[in-house]
């Protein structure tokens, strides 16, 4: 399984043609206390870069963009009651949604963990 990152601080884990999407540790630290997450419904078709989810901290609302194109399999049901999971476990239990990738070639335009770490370092 491989993990890729966007410059907007989303990550996607790819296992076969299924991607799991979330936001990075850096993103959650910048957002602060997360109080609400709106995840996409099953069956929603997303194009790379589409607004896929909304994450609200105490201070502000932010869009989460889909790092790849595909069809949503499920949103993370745990985030409805426990949005703070995104603060606690942003890169594991705090995932946002899973989708079936329609164009795996898009992954080549994303950063791997080392490249993303270097990207964040410069921010």
């Amino acid at each position, binding site marked *: 399984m491989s993990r890729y990152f966007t410059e907007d601080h989303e990550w996607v884990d790819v296992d076969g043609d299924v991607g799991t999407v979330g936001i990075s540790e850096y993103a959650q630290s910048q957002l*602060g206390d997360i109080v609400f997450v709106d995840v996409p419904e099953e069956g929603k078709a997303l194009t790379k870069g589409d607004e896929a989810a909304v994450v609200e901290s*105490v*201070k502000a609302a932010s869009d989460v963009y889909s790092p790849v194109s595909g069809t949503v399999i499920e949103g993370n049901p745990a985030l409805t009651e426990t949005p703070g999971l995104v603060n606690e476990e942003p890169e594991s239990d705090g995932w946002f949604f899973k989708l079936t990738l329609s164009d795996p070639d898009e992954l080549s335009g994303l950063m791997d963990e080392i490249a993303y770490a270097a990207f964040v370092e410069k921010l």
Partner: protein
Amino acid sequence: MSDTEIPDEIATQTLPLDAWHRAQGGRMVEFAGYHMPVQYEGIMAEHLWVRESAGLFDVSHMGQLVFRAEGGADVVAALEALLPADIAGLAENKQRYSLLLAENGGILDDLMVTHLPRENPFAADDEAAEPAEPAGWSPLDASPTDPDAPTFYMVVNGATKIDDIAHLLEFLPDGIAINHLEEQALLALQGPKAADALARLVPGVEAMVFMTAGAFDWNGVPLWISRSGYTGEDGFEISVPGEHVVALADALIAEPEVKPIGLGARDSLRLEAGLPLYGHDLDPETTPVQADLGFALSKRRREAGDFMGAEPILAERAAGATTKRVGLLIAGRQPVREGATVVDASGADIGRVTSGGFAPSVGAAIAMAYVPAELATPGTTVSLSQRGKVHTATVTAMPFIPHRYVRAGGK
């Protein structure tokens, strides 16, 4: 438009605690033209800490003004011409909330005004206190011709202070001097344990009650302290010379009850307390009647009708405002924030949300909004539109969290 008169880029200014905030781990943002800390450890934790213990806020961006009569002018009458408060009835060391009003009744700013004692605690920062004054005249007195003429201290919002001063200079009569205390920093210590912590450093503050003030000494540093604030909690606001504010802030956070708190929690605390924020819930387009600030229009001043903006405001008060500021409890967890609209059944805009967010002590999303008067009764259900999504909310009496001020006759 005044925009053409202002340079496009005004450099963000720094306040005396700038380096202190950074050393404390504050995340700095631009606010009201200054670099200010929005948070330290996190807005939620900071908010809850203030509600259970005590938090230290730097509010040095706010404008501190002293009004003094020169040569027999009447400072009380001058201030009453511009403010709807009973200034004549404000005893020494008493503080009052008031509004700076435009001719059309719009709110130019909200503020706190205090009647200073005869021994002007800001004498050291007062231009009149220069040693060139004639011998025998004490700078502590308001005027060489009338030592009994009162002086007043006013705290106004940071983002509006320059416009406020321009308005005051335009409309105050000759003979009223305004001194902008730019060298004074301002701290707020708020929370149920604020009195315990501050009294250890400055004995005697615990004897004051809400909306009173006094001069104190801390290791030779003159402090002007009021028992007031903008969080709904008990607490104090402390005016301190800028060169001593780092030492005072260090001493305050050394007390076990006290942590530094950023602007983020300041905003969520005042929202829960039902307190309007200028530039968001109040602006030149809204009046005190619409904003539900009728308490700021004192009875004597209403009957006299002799303050700027009185005519339209009193007419609106008699007829009833068509739009009212209300509190809203939002259904579901998603915050509905400033910029969202209040909509009718057809989806047409009928009002606006002016502040909103997640309320840590309520555990729900809350907001302030202006709604048509017929929807302003607590218990009324209203619909809100935000980014294409409709939310349901219930009009709720404010404050959302009970105020815990220490009043005269209380414990």
